[in-house]
């Protein structure tokens, strides 16, 4: 609801199938376009909006209230807000005062050129996306006319076939020293990170394992990487269609078996492609903090943070790759491991941020994989 004391412009989210969801514009930018996805998380809005995996997407928050606790610089997953736009049922608009508070969310969005829409019937929108599948959409002022808005929504480039990783990857390689905590392993191991749009939390979790990171752009070549003599390769999360970055799968293929490999999300999909498996687009993806994933070996179930629209098909897995994790809601593949090579990868986000920490032990598993490989 918009209190009468605050004057906001009426705006709407128009989908490429013509559906319109009205609301009020927030933030300094009035327009946005992208694939519209919903996330069922009840906390962690700031992490979501800065996650590079949401690059090019308009994120719909299903939770009733967003912005209640303001924003905090330390939880940003990237220096900029990557989501194309944000749609809220009710964004808290008044000034915020909170013990950790830096800025309130509307101001934060304004400062990051993020378009927002509040006062939207997000439940209706979510049910629409659930039933019709993820769609492209356009946020813009209401006064321009419906047809114009629909045309803009239809003009948004489809997610299938889009290589967005290149857009969000780092332009130049850079290094990050380990973050050694009292429990961190003693020996420092150099690892190359192929950046398809990495979240800060992933880098932090790797660094806490006493890994010295060199982060390379998505299209880095083997020569670039070899020059640093890394002992392991990590493939990051990121936005877009994995099939649209064959160069990345090519690179991964070269290292499979040569160095220990670990991939998360898009990195997982790329490793699957490298092994000869296939990926496909899910109807409306997995975006939330409550996805149950079962370890097929132990039977243990983790509640995981997820954010992906594409998925690895279980049907064309080569014989040396087994599905190690399954989503028990829809029986999709959530993790792979190589039976003959030091490599594994997961579709979900063990770094959480936001989300439950059930799977955080996977970073230790990578560390162990490295140690065992060189033992």
């Amino acid at each position: 609801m918009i209190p009468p004391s605050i004057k906001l412009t009426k705006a709407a989210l128009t989908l490429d199938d013509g559906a319109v969801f009205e609301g009020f514009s927030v933030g300094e930018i009035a327009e946005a376009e992208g694939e519209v996805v919903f996330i069922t998380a009840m906390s962690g809005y700031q992490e979501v909006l800065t996650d590079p995996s949401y690059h090019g997407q308009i994120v719909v928050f299903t939770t009733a209230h967003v912005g209640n606790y303001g924003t905090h610089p330390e939880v940003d997953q990237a220096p900029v807000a990557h989501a194309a736009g944000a749609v809220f049922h009710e964004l808290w608009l008044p000034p915020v005062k909170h013990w950790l508070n830096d800025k309130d969310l509307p101001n934060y969005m304004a400062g990051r050129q993020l378009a927002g829409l509040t006062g939207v019937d997000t439940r209706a929108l979510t049910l629409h996306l659930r039933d019709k599948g993820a769609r492209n959409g356009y946020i813009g002022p209401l006064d321009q006319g419906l047809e114009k808005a629909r045309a803009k929504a239809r003009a948004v480039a489809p997610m299938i076939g889009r290589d967005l990783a290149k857009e969000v990857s780092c332009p130049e390689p850079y290094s990050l020293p380990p973050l050694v905590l009292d429990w961190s392993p003693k020996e420092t191991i150099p690892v190359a990170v192929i950046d398809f749009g990495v979240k800060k939390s992933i880098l932090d979790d790797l660094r806490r394992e006493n890994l010295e990171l060199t982060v390379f752009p998505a299209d880095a070549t083997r020569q670039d990487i070899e020059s640093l003599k890394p002992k392991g390769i990590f493939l990051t999360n990121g936005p877009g269609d994995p099939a649209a970055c064959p160069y990345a799968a090519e690179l991964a293929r070269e290292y499979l078996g040569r160095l220990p490999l670990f991939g998360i999300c898009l990195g997982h999909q790329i490793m699957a492609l490298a092994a000869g498996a296939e990926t496909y687009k899910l109807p409306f993806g997995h975006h939330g903090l409550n996805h149950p994933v079962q370890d097929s070996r132990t039977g243990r179930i983790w509640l995981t943070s997820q954010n992906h629209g594409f998925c690895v098909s279980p049907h064309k897995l080569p014989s040396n790759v087994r599905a190690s994790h399954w989503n028990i809601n829809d029986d999709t593949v959530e993790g792979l491991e190589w039976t003959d090579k030091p490599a594994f990868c997961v579709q979900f986000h063990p770094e959480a941020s936001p989300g439950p920490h059930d799977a955080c032990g996977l970073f230790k598993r990578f560390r162990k994989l490295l140690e065992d490989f060189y033992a």
Partner: protein
Amino acid sequence: MPRRTDLETIMIFGSGPIIIGQACEFDYSATQGCKALKEENYRLILLNSNPATVMTDPEFSDRTYVEPMTAEVAADVAVKENVQAILPTLGGQTALNLAMDLFLKKYLPPDVVMIGSTPEVIEIAESRQRFRETMTNLGLEVPVSDLANTVDEATAIAQKTGFPAIVRPSYTLGGTGGGVAYNLDELTELAWRGLTASPVHQILVEESLIGWKEMELEMIRDLDDNAIIVCGIENVDPMGVHTGDSVTVAPIQTLTDVEYQSMRDDALKVARAVGLNGGCNIQFAINPETGRRVVIEMNPRVSRSSALASKATGFPIARVASKLAVGYTLGELKNGITGKSACFEPALDYCVVKAPRFNFEKFAGSSPVLGLEMKAVGETMALGGNFREALQKALRGLEIGQVGLGSFPPPGGPNLSDEERLELVKEKLVQPLPERLSDVYHALKLGLAAEEAAHLTGLDPWFIDQIRLIIEAEKMASGPLADLIAKGEKPSAEMWRHLKAQGLSDLRLAVLVSESGKAPEANQELISSLRLEAGVIPYFRQVDTCAGEFEAGTPYYYSSFDSPVSPSEESRPPADKKRVMILGGGPNRIGQGIEFDYCCVKASQAFAAMGFETIMVNSNPETVSTDYDAVGRLYFEPVTLEDVLAVCRKEKPDGVVVQLGGQTPLNLAMALRAHGVPIWGTDPASIFRAENRRDWSALVEKLGLRQPPSGMARDAETAKSIAARIGYPVMVRPSFVLGGRAMCVIYNEHDLSEYVAQFISQGLELGADLGDERLILVDKFLEGAVEVDVDAVADGNQVVIAAIMEHIEQAGIHSGDSCCSIPPITLPLSVLEGIRSQTRKLGLELGVKGLMNIQFAVTKDNEIYVLEANPRASRTAPFVAKATGCPIIEVAAKVMAGQTLQETGFVSEPRRDYVAVKEAVLPWSRFKGASVTLGPEMRSTGEVMGVDKNFGIAFLKSQIAAGMNYPQLGNVVLTVCDADKGALRPLASRLAEMGYFLLATKGTAEFLEKEASLKPVVLNKLRSIKPNIVDYLSSNPVQFVVNTTIGQKADEDSVLIRAEAIKRGIPLITTMAGLNAAVTGLLALKELTAKNEVDEKSQPESTRKHSPFDVTPLQDYHLPAHDTKI
């Protein structure tokens, strides 16, 4: 792991009588647990002393024992039924404590296992010391604290914690006996009280966390270490108010993901360390300044909050916990709503607010300040599209006259300036009072800065801002909306939508518009019709556990104005079925509680069996009737006219049942009918006729029945003249109330004037706007008469009595507070026949279709007076059903659906060869300072039943079940008023013969010495030489106390004597009738014990019973073999 196959028979413990802190949420949990285990084909044995529950309906378990919940009885049942496992986690603290007692006393064969929570798990979670150690080992913070076994130890610990310091007794329920001490004096007193309250005489003295954020996580873990958080609940009231007394919200609103996930990690660690298998509740406190988080407590069982969490999310915690207890893991179970895995964490796209219901007004003398000890007697929950909508729905569902957050008047009289009033409100804000949110509302309206409001109350700024938004919306109502209405113009749909989405009820909007002075004539009717004209109706959203991510088929709905469109989840009732809607009773309160939930649930089942689609409307999260799995289509809504009509418009029911939910739906009957809603059962006009004093008197007269002479008064003069005409003592009461609210026996003119003055000045919070009906009824009080309750079913042409109940206490004590027996014990056959014939006459004259309850009084010379008739389900209906085996609710449902009694097969009064005694349980210990007397105003929170072949034993079982254990030897203190001394003589002699040691105050002792040749030890009266009687009680073992007074007003001495007995947990008898029954019971027990001793000599030790009583399940009692021929 799949279901355990090594177990066949499982015993479940219920939670016993409803008490503050342990209400019908455990009926919900255990009923769900019974269903879940039945599905798995286990043989279920249930032990619960509370006959008002759904779970004790014989269909929910194979063997249902309504017997006292003592370790001895439980052991006997377990052995008799060859129980292999005990599931103690569904029946609250009572069940957990009983299981531990059973375990520690080693009564059970060694191969009987505890499932759900093992003794080890319970021990770690419940022992403060071990819990603390466990937390510290995990690296989690706990408040600075230590255990004390003496007051001196407590004061030493307070040196470390500083003041304020918290005192928590070990092993007590709902924080009984705990409190906050701000100085050494208070600490000394609290420590002493806490040590007394604790069954192990131990307290924890703890650093105060007052003002910190209070969070609860409801979690489930299986033995494979899979764990989920079903729901996070945030207390709007910060630490310092018991969570049962706090307004709470789900999901958690003011924690960052970092804070939330790190708290979640801690919860998982705790559950793992404790070894949890099933559901638990973990409470945390978070310092809002520093973010420091401490673990407060963990309950290794389903809890009040887990019931709330289940309703709030749609995730059935008790069901899943029960399945885990018999071997399943989370991954093997499905979420019934989505068909996906049950191993997930529900996502909410709405807000859920719970608000507590208090009954302070019934306990004059006790202070309405909230603290660590729970005081709420019930609660409502509401779901809304946003926090404000949910909050205001919850508040109006409480039925305390608060139709919106702002509808209580500001504190202070009418003559205060705004500045003075603001100062007053600010003073109030510092204290945790029940009306705190209302006070914040007024403070902000008076200009208090949001920041200061947050500072004074400890509420998160976000909550304060939500209240500000409600104020803004109200300004729109009294401004632009009122302007339009005054001008006769139509407000736009957008404006209506906006206002309604803030949770403003039509009634509240009417008040705002009317009070603006612009359109003074505005009323609810006008507002509703203008709104409907604009096409603004609520949208019914589905509770789906997943924020819309997956399709859900469960018909569990809530209304919201906040999201107007979503055609894909329209609730579509099946077209081929007739629909019957049942209105529930709203929040529990004294006088209207679990009994009506039982009625609603049983009726829903009966209607469903007849082929109807049932629709339930209720707002009480503790109930079985709000379990989407127990009813056809559930609408979780406040039971108010506006909300019910909205559901009616949506569902278009063929019939609406108002006679099962207590007074709440009954109060809506006339208005619903006026809106064209088809009411099933007794005509609302008949209901009105029975409730309206004038019509009722005329009716009784017409039938030629006797009623106490009476009159109606609107002022003191009339009241006095009526009293003079009919003679004192008189019984006075306001019309249209349940539970005898403000009912009083008055002996003289002075007290009468006082009563009337109070009635007029305060007004009364009635459930509905009754205008002219605000009258005082003055009846002749029939002193010494025996009261009789009759429950019957009628179909318009025939009346069949289900049971006649004789009250043990004489007239003047509310029927809900008095002990009663089926069948009657002392009434002659001629009187019973008279009662039967009068019941039939009344039922036919009132045209009752369905249930009715009539109260009679029988004077000493056997004259029958009819006191009142209620053409609705009574509080005693479930007791009658359990005691007689007669399914009266099902019969009534069939009658309401159009069958005749002949067709239902219920044509004659059931007569059984055993006795069932119902006893009330009273919450004295929670309301310090309140006078401990039974009277016409109901104060009990719950009830128990004792059943046996013999009245004495049945009575004694009921007393033990109610927590009053009468040892067979020991000291008895007698202090009775002159009028009762004659009756005391034979009873005192009996006690002496049985070997009790008698003590008495001077007057009583002299009488007994003279008249009965007894020589009681004389105790000094209060205010004479010390040690006096209270000193004696406080420092000597006393097995029970008998104290009676003239009329219902306890004199000052009695107040202190009774308070001391309550404090010490000494059984207290306040009537001669009660003593008579107790003596009868003790004599019967003596006989039984003697017989058992003879029997046991011939038996091996291993098969010997632990309890002197025989235990029998209801299924056996209800067999035709127990019918008696008349």
